[in-house]
């Protein structure tokens, strides 16, 4: 059931509430413009909020993200819509766009929810927790995680048995199963696309056995295992709960690989793998960590020193491409690889394998723009009209791009990119107003 659209006016619509979207929103709002930040997920913060630490400083990722989230949340010029889908954006003339949004229902009156989690406690249904990559369960009435913003409960209606336990337990009576999706019609002067990236789906490389072998995880799952809000009590194997002591990283899983359709370097995998390996040396001091790589690309400020630090900590580096991985009966994994140094095929046994998955484009925004064709580059990222001098310009006048929407980059670059996009959007609004 949907309602008639409510009409709203803003200066800028930002699509995507990850770190780039948040940064762009704060920049624009600080310059006196009204911003709406639309996020499809239940919380803003994006992938950065789920990371353990950041490289090369090893600062706590959530500790950097949450002040930004808080600033955006309380800014008088920023309106945040979570759980919101943009259905269309139409350019009307040089001065404004019309956008249609659907704010999906949470079945909870957001302003009344105190985040007490009593509904969660009462709910009898347990399903895999998508924010922990299925490694633990969550309730059908739930708050995504403790530092979610807004920290408001949601009813997962697809898994709800309508027992009413949550509604009875709620002290503020904010659960409302009759709440419907709400439609909005926006008039905005400019749009910033900050939809971020997707992780490469490692099941596409069948010889690596991801999704089949129990003790092969991807790097984002390892981020969760290392984060303070982790799914398990410690870093343990998902196959049997054993503390691993011989861990392998397989770099370039789904990047720099024509055979999976992603020939470009993902730019972050080497460094996040080095970071995780160092964190693992701290969490599991007796463990052996081996990184299998094609070439280590430590190109940024402080990155080479970070690589040297990893080597000095005792992390093993083997130059070689993994051919295949097979699972033993005890859950251990045999990695078959070409050792480039000796020119020989070798095999090595590990008890946990982490696939350093690459960055692939998020094409969700590509169908939003109706008659105005949203052009893409050869790698399916949005086309950057002026890559060298104005990298945030899209091929549609008035629509700008921020962060990893345009291609792989690390967090500082995503924040710089958001700064550029926000300034371009402000200039565009000021120019078209004349």
């Amino acid at each position: 059931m949907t309602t008639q659209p409510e009409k709203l006016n803003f200066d800028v619509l930002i699509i995507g509430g990850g770190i780039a979207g948040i940064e762009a929103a704060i920049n624009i709002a600080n310059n006196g413009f009204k911003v709406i930040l639309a996020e499809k997920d239940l919380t803003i913060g994006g992938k950065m909020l789920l990371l353990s630490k950041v490289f090369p400083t090893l600062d706590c990722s959530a500790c950097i993200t949450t002040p930004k989230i808080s600033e955006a949340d309380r800014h008088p010029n920023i309106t945040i819509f979570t759980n919101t889908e943009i259905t269309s954006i139409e350019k009307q003339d040089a001065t404004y766009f019309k956008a249609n949004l659907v704010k999906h229902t949470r079945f909870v009156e957001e302003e009344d929810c105190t985040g007490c989690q009593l509904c969660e406690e009462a709910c009898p249904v347990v399903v895999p927790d998508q924010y922990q990559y299925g490694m633990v369960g969550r309730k059908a009435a739930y708050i995504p995680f403790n530092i979610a913003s807004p920290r408001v409960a949601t009813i997962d209606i697809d898994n709800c048995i309508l027992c009413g336990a949550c509604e009875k337990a709620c002290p503020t009576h904010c659960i409302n199963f009759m709440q419907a999706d709400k439609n909005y019609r926006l008039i905005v002067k400019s749009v910033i696309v900050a939809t971020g990236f997707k992780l490469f789906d490692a099941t596409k490389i069948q010889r690596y056995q991801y999704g089949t072998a129990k003790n092969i995880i991807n790097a984002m799952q390892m981020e969760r295992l290392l984060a303070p809000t982790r799914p398990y009590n410690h870093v343990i194997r998902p196959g049997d709960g054993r503390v691993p002591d011989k861990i392998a990283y397989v770099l370039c899983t789904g990047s720099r690989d024509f055979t999976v359709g992603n020939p470009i370097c993902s730019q972050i995998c080497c460094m996040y793998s080095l970071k995780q390996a160092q964190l693992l040396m701290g969490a599991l001091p007796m463990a052996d960590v081996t990184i299998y790589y094609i070439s280590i690309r430590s190109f940024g400020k402080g990155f080479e020193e970070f690589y040297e630090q990893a080597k000095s900590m005792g992390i093993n580096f083997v130059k070689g491409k993994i051919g295949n991985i097979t699972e033993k009966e005890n859950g251990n994994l045999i990695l078959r690889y070409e050792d480039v140094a000796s020119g020989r095929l070798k095999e090595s046994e590990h008890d946990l394998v982490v696939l350093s998955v690459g960055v692939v484009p998020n094409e969700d925004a590509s169908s939003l723009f109706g008659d105005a064709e949203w052009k893409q580059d050869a790698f399916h990222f949005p086309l950057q009209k002026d890559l060298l001098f104005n990298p945030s310009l899209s091929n549609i006048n008035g629509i700008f791009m921020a962060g990893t929407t345009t291609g792989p980059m690390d967090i500082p670059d995503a924040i710089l990119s958001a700064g550029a996009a926000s300034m371009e959007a402000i200039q565009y609004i000021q120019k078209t107003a004349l």
Partner: protein
Amino acid sequence: MQDQKSQTFKAKREQHEVSQQLKDELKKFNATKKKVVEAFGEGELNIPELAEKTGLSREEALYYAMTFLKFGWLKTTRLDDMDEYYYYKISK
């Protein structure tokens, strides 16, 4: 007004049918929860021991144990002498 609001799940039931699959999954979860709680009893178990006592695979046993740990129904007690497996017990 509050009474009316706290009954919205009943009105929703008239619009939205709960599938048999969901009901079956809930039954399965409750049965597994009972098995896990009985397996622990008053003692402590690691994941392979829990799997053996409940008939679950080790992977499933870990999923349930970690979910129960998250909900506060279990707690971690110690790491074994070989530094291989953690032990867990029912949280009072």
